[in-house]
C-alpha cells in the first residue's frame, strides 16, 4: 500500500528539517571589527511545530492474539516478546500505545494496521 501525500506535507517536512533552527549570520565581518551578529529567528505556526502523535491499538474480541502479535512484529519490527507484551496490554487494558512520533509516520503505521484489520487510531499527545 502506498500513502497519498496529505496536503501541506512538503511544508511540514521542511519545517521538520528546520525545527529549532536559528540562523546566525555574521555579515561584513573583518578581522579588525566584529559586528554583533544578526539573529534571524523563524516563526512557525502551531501546526508546523507538529507535536508528537501516538499510534494506539484498541481491543477487538475477534482478532486472534497470535495474529495481533504477528502484526506488531511485522509493522513495527518489534521482537516477539515486545509484540506479545503490547498484544496483552491491548487484551487486558483495552488499548496499547504502540509508537509515538511525527504525524506522517504515525499515519503510515495506522494505515498498515488497518490493512491488517486491526482497530488502530492516531492521537495527538497532550
Amino acid at each position: 500500500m502506498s500513502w497519498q501525500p496529505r496536503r501541506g506535507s512538503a511544508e511540514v517536512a521542511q519545517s521538520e528539517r528546520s525545527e529549532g533552527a536559528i540562523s546566525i549570520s555574521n555579515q561584513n565581518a573583518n578581522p579588525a571589527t566584529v559586528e554583533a551578529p544578526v539573529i534571524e529567528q523563524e516563526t512557525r505556526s502551531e501546526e508546523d511545530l507538529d507535536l508528537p502523535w501516538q499510534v494506539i491499538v484498541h481491543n477487538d474480541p475477534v482478532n486472534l492474539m497470535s495474529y495481533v502479535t504477528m502484526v506488531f512484529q511485522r509493522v513495527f519490527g518489534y521482537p516477539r516478546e515486545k509484540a506479545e507484551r503490547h498484544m496483552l496490554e491491548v487484551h487486558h487494558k483495552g488499548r496499547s500505545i504502540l509508537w509515538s512520533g511525527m504525524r506522517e509516520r504515525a499515519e503510515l503505521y495506522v494505515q498498515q494496521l488497518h490493512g491488517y484489520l486491526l482497530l488502530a487510531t492516531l492521537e495527538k499527545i497532550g
Partner: protein
Amino acid sequence: MEICRREDKLEISELDPFLAELLRQIPASANPEGTPTAEQRLFSPPAGPREREICAEWKLYVQPELRRLFRTATETVAADLEQLSGNEKTFANRTLRIPAKHADAWLSALNQARLVIAAKYNFTDGELCDHYRSPIGSRRDLSLFQVNFYGFLQEFILREVIDCPGKNSD
C-alpha cells in the same frame, strides 16, 4: 478433515461437504456490503472525531486502497477455492492445496470474514470465547461456528507458514 503442511503448500484433505461449503463461503462472507456495522468495522476511522482533516483525507485516499487490498486477498482465496467447485458429493476425496505464498491473502480473507460475521451477528465476547459451544441449533450458532472454524484455519496458517516459513513436513 485433515490439515497439514507439505513443502510449500497447505493441504486440507478429507473434506466433508459441510466444511467444504464453509470454505467456499469465505469470499462471500468477507463482503461487508449491506451490513453497515461490518462496513464500519472494516473501515474504521483512523482518529477521533475531532481530527476531521485526517478522517476526511483518510476516506479519500486510504479507504479505496484498503478496499483494493481486501478485495485482492479475497480474489486470491476465491481462485484457490476453485479446486472445490463441482459436485459436492465428491468433496470427500478432494484435497484443497493452498500455496504458502498465498498465506497472507488467506489470513486477510479469513479475518475479513470473521469480522464481518461477528459484526453482522453482534457476537458478545463470551460467545466468541466459547469454543466448545454445541450443538448448532440456529443460524446464529452456525455463524459462530463459522467464525471459530475460520479462526482455527488462521491459527494453523500462522503456526505453519508465518512462524516457520521454511518448514517442510511429509
